[in-house]
């Protein structure tokens, strides 16, 4: 397999090609990463305010 040819084709091809797959999955990965971090952090200093507004 000629990896250099493949990579140059990736950037020169006329259609969106694999860019779409990578973008979609990459975007999902990014979103999930931040969501997991957000979950684990819990809230913190706003704890009191949150209960007050419930």
């Amino acid at each position: 397999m000629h990896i250099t040819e493949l990579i140059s084709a990736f950037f020169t091809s006329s259609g969106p090609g694999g860019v779409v797959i990578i973008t979609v999955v990459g975007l999902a990965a990014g979103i999930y990463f931040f969501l997991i971090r957000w979950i684990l952090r819990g809230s913190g200093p706003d704890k009191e305010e949150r209960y007050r507004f419930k």
Partner: protein
Amino acid sequence: MAKWSMVIDLEKCVACQACSIACRFENNTPVVAPEQAEMGRAICWNDVFPLPISSTEETGEYPNVTTRYITRPCMHCENPPCTKVCPVGATFINEEGIVEQNYTRCIGCRFCTVACPYGVRYFNWFEPQWEAPLDEHLNPDRVEGRGVLEGPAVRPRGVVEKCTYCIHRLAKARARAGAEGREFRPDEYVPACVQTCTGKARFFGDLEDPNSAVSQLAKSTRAFRLLEEVGTHPKTIYLREG
């Protein structure tokens, strides 16, 4: 730009199969074992077979039998259902209307083979092989480039192949004209089946040229195309018998 097309006169065709044989030798079509052929794996870019094609259509009762034969290369459609579905662009239609097949890029998913309504596409189920002495008669012509391998070049296993309107002959004719420092003339390019046809039933040329044989014949009242209702706009045109 040229628009290459083939016209086949069924009135003159006697189903001698010389076209099929010429095609297989020109294009290095692999031979398959008899058991494989019985399974339906024979490769025949230009196929000659009886019409009607299935037992649900009428052939009649002896002696009032209607038997016809048709010789069928690739249709080289203007709206090809096969090129639409190829995930990697291994098959595509070029500017001159030839539907090409690139063996290097093909991943063998066989989407194009199931999408073609004419069944003109074939697959290499094994590594192509020839028994002696056939292996000494391979056509050395190749259409090759960076990441491109087409035409008669010996295929690797696991890729799709089909009639190319002998695209290597087009390349050779253009190269020869270029080498001789002159214009390429469309009549220098003729596929092997057209050249060989014993009944002079096949014609080939440029539909964009109103004076070419194919343009004239395409206007004939006997002209028809296969499966016109499917909307593929095939460029292989037939002339009805009678």
